[in-house]
């Protein structure tokens, strides 16, 4: 192996497990609805309906429809929250309920919140900007002071549930959601009993939607079934989506002590690394990141049953990822999949949603396919799961995520056996 040495699993390892999950995705609200739709290949990518996008050069988005904030949140929270925070609060509620955790008295220092966010409260801010220019500064909502902010999901989840343990917000573009989970595990290992973690993003208002095209990687294709084709020879960019996932992370000991109703699996390894600058002759950091995460789980590449890919949907990025995977595991040696083809890219929500999907793959022994992709270049050297779900016992999965300008993160989850 070339490159820096791989760090082994830490001594005195405290296993960290997932005991509850909540999902808000364009193709499903709630974990089981999402999972069913993933296995049945139902896409959440449609033409933009939230506003009139007729003047835009791009038309598609992975929109969450059917989420009525008033049904999930107290009226007091509505004037002060962006759509992304409303989704995060509801998703956190579902994760806590799934884990049968009732935070209780509002003085709980043994439970923390660590989330990631990449785009902030765009829709809220867009509205306030409108007021600023139309009516004047005194018309701007005082809640703009925090509703736009990357840390607001962590703060609001903490306040709503009285979770007064360690709180943090990580910003790592589209890799940040995995960084949040990694930091949640670290926080649990340092002694906090339970951490709510994950990521939720939304930027599908007229301004947020437009801003996503500045990167030049969004697909101009208007057919929802052809617009986001990860690893396909015809890949031409991605579709932006909204949503994400929230997970309850605990030490295995704490989960067992309180009699947690279920353990989805262990977050066994995490690593992050940054790419070299453009023009460098050093390779991208993705392979190194994956190697580190696997090693910190105490595993070898051959132990991994499936890879949930970053799946940029941009040929040069797909090629780089395929080379990292085939280089690390051997050509075609491990099944690779990208369920996000059905949701679009969810920014900080993408990694946590993939981790939930990987845990469900472990639970049900099935790998969901990469919808719509059909023609994977042989030169990629990867075994991409396409067409139908692949029934296969899964005990260990690698989830990778990349963010623009060099972020890489990887998480290894495995079946929990005590």
């Amino acid at each position, binding site marked *: 192996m070339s490159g820096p040495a791989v760090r082994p699993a830490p001594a005195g390892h405290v296993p960290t497990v997932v005991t509850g999950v909540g999902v808000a995705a364009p193709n499903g609200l709630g974990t089981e609805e999402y999972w069913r739709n993933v296995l049945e290949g139902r896409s959440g990518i449609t033409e933009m309906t939230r506003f009139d996008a007729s003047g835009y050069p791009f038309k598609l988005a992975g929109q969450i429809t059917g989420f009525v904030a008033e049904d999930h949140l107290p009226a007091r929270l*509505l*004037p002060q929250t962006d759509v992304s925070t409303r989704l995060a609060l509801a998703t956190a509620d579902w994760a806590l309920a799934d884990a049968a955790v009732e935070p209780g008295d509002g003085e709980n220092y043994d439970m923390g919140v660590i989330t990631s966010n990449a785009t902030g409260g765009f829709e809220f801010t867009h509205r306030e900007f409108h007021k600023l220019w139309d009516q004047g500064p005194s018309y701007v909502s*005082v809640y703009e002071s925090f509703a736009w902010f990357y840390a607001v999901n962590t703060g609001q989840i903490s306040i709503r549930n009285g979770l007064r343990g360690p709180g943090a917000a990580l910003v790592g573009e589209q890799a940040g959601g995995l960084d949040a989970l990694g930091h949640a595990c670290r926080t649990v290992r340092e002694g906090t009993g339970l951490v709510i973690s994950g990521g939720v993003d939304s930027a599908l208002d007229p301004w947020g939607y437009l801003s996503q095209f500045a990167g030049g990687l969004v697909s101009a294709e208007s057919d929802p079934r052809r617009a986001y084709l990860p690893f396909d020879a015809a890949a031409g960019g991605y579709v932006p989506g909204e949503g994400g996932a929230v997970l309850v992370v605990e030490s295995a000991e704490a989960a067992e002590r309180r009699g947690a109703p279920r353990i989805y699996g262990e977050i066994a390894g995490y690593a992050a690394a940054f790419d070299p600058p453009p023009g460098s002759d050093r390779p991208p950091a993705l392979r190194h990141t994956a190697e580190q995460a696997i090693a910190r789980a105490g595993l070898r590449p051959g132990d991994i049953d499936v890879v949930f890919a970053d799946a940029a949907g941009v040929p040069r990025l797909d090629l780089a990822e395929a080379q990292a995977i085939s280089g690390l595991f051997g050509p075609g040696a491990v099944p690779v999949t990208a369920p996000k083809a059905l949701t679009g890219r969810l920014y900080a929500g993408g990694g946590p949603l993939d981790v939930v999907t990987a845990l469900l793959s472990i639970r049900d022994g099935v790998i969901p396919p990469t919808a719509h992709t059909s023609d994977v270049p042989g030169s990629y050297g990867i075994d991409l799961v396409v067409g139908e779900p692949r029934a296969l016992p899964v005990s260990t999965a690698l989830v990778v995520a990349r963010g623009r300008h060099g972020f890489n993160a990887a998480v290894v989850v495995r079946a929990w056996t005590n």
Partner: protein
Amino acid sequence: MSALSIDDLRRVLVECAGEAEGAEFDGDGRTFEELGYDSLALIETAARLKQRYGIDLDDGDVMAAETPAALLSLANAAARS
């Protein structure tokens, strides 16, 4: 203009910061804190009172008003002056 009523104030508060938690307020002795309205809710409400009714209140005075009734008399006193 005629004096601001408790219902006018309530309407503005709800518009700015959502419904009160638990019971509705009706001008009884319940404090903003008990009703779930924090200082930001009050600052937002004061900004709206100025826009809608031309009532100009000092932020410090607004924060010192502990109950809707106190804020109402503050607002009506300012409107008269």
